[in-house]
């Protein structure tokens, strides 16, 4: 009885892990094979030419570069905006704190569809539509709640006495900020930057609505290919698209145990 229960447990766990690697295997099978016709259960002819062609395609390269550039811009800007806000939210009690929280969390409630459609007109008018900066600005909306939440929960555990001690020892405000505050916050800052990067990197709707066909990122390219392209190029693009997230999640797996739930929905 006990033994069959164990076998069942192992099977379920095996299944759980299979689901995790299955998408990667599936993409790899399609991306690195050719002439894989219908009834054949597994690829018969392996090749790297499709994948190589994909990463040498100028459209793909441009879309990766643009997506990367936007995601970096978004990470830096949302970090700068979040840091002071997260500090007071994590450390201070003040009148209207609840209201500030609610306002900063509005972007997690209002669908990107509605935000993007509304901003589409505004950005067209002020000339931000179709520009890298315009798209980055739009990406900051869904990103901010997550960076603020990550940083403020770190600030809630932050001991300000370290700063006072440095002050008492004669450190300048700048020295305190760099050598004490930033030093202590580094792990959470890294997690926040990675979240921001991920959310921006995988953003489809806001890029489509603000970029207006001029800013092409990998999700945009993948979406249009998936609506009618051949399976091999779809799979190759998918592999390129998930490479950064897969790497990031693998590296930050430990801290995700604390923060994983928070970023769930944005993509």
């Amino acid at each position, binding site marked *: 009885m006990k033994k069959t229960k164990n076998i069942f*447990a192992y099977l*379920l*766990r095996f299944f759980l892990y299979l689901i*995790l690697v299955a*998408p990667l295997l*599936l*993409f790899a099978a*399609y991306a690195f094979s050719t002439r894989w016709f*219908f*009834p*054949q*259960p597994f690829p018969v002819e392996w090749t790297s030419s499709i994948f190589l062609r994909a990463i040498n395609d100028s459209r793909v390269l441009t879309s990766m570069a643009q997506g990367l550039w936007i995601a970096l811009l978004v990470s830096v800007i949302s970090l700068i*905006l979040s840091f*002071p*806000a997260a500090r*007071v*939210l994590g450390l*201070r009690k*003040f009148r*209207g*704190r609840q209201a*500030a929280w609610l*306002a*900063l969390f*509005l*972007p997690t*409630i*209002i*669908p990107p*569809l*509605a*935000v*993007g*459609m*509304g901003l589409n*007109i*505004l950005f067209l*008018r002020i000339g931000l539509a179709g520009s890298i900066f315009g798209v980055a600005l739009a990406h900051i909306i869904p990103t901010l709640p997550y960076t*603020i939440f990550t940083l403020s929960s770190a600030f809630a555990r932050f001991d300000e006495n370290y700063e006072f001690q440095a*002050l008492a020892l004669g450190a300048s*405000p700048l020295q305190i900020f760099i050598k004490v505050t930033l030093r202590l916050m580094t792990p959470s800052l890294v997690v926040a930057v990675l979240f921001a990067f991920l959310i921006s990197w*995988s953003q489809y*709707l806001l890029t489509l609505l603000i970029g207006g066909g001029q800013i092409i990122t990998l*999700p945009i390219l*993948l*979406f249009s290919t998936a609506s009618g392209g051949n399976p091999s190029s*779809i799979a190759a693009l*998918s592999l390129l*698209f*998930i490479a950064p997230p897969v790497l*990031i999640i*693998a590296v930050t*797996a430990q801290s*995700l145990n604390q923060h*994983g*739930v928070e*970023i*769930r*929905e944005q*993509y």
Partner: protein
Amino acid sequence: MRDNPIFSPWLALAPALTIVLVLLGASLFYAVAESFGVISVIGQSEPSLDAYRNTLDAHSEFWTSLGFSLWISVASTVIAAALALGLAVWLSERRGNIDTLALNWNLAFPHLVWSVALLLLLSQSGLLARWAATLGLISVPADFPVLVRDRFGVGIILSYVSKEIPFLTIIILSVLRSQPVGYDVIAENLGASRWQRLRYVTIPQVMPALLAGALLVFGFIFSSYEVPALLGIGYPRALPVLALRFFLDPDLRARSEGMVVSLIITLLVTAVAIVSLKMGERKE
């Protein structure tokens, strides 16, 4: 220094709050203005209710799409919640961070890529169809059941269910693992059966968190575009798909109707989020 009482905390909050409120406010303003047909592009300045009238007309596609969206959102949420409950209860009886790591791994696959994977796996010439053919279950692709891009949204539901189970499982697990007293153990000592423990101890414990989480999931599914656009068909189409198609229509009058649909989605999702927040508060 930074903590000088003269500096209000609002000064630190100002940059982030300004960005969020100005951008959201502006987008809402333009959405409402355009829904009333006040668009500079076609030079119309008199507000009209035409778009609302056309959208909410009894024969409009809006109602079909609303029904379809409700169907995929409710079905996905309910199935994911039930399976997540089972998985969480099973995992909570075992220790180990490995499984929570496994659950977080899901984050590495955005919804878009997850749907693409399902497309490659489940289409009529996909991997499962090939395996079925190898086993002699089917002979041509057309024999394989239509699981993606199907009339009933099966592919969409499959995509959401498999993506949301980990999220809901983590929520339930965190409740189960934060219980200071082993109520479950006490109940077991008092002679409760496995089913009784689940029914009278575990489920009441996790219900508030699970409901709040499920409402969030519902709101997300109801308002998101990529999955139904990729795994759905032309008719019936989900509300967000309808909204965007109207909005990108070359006929500028259709844009107003797109805005109306989008505003209705926003209104519904916001109402659901408020209920979810209230539930989360009551739990404390």
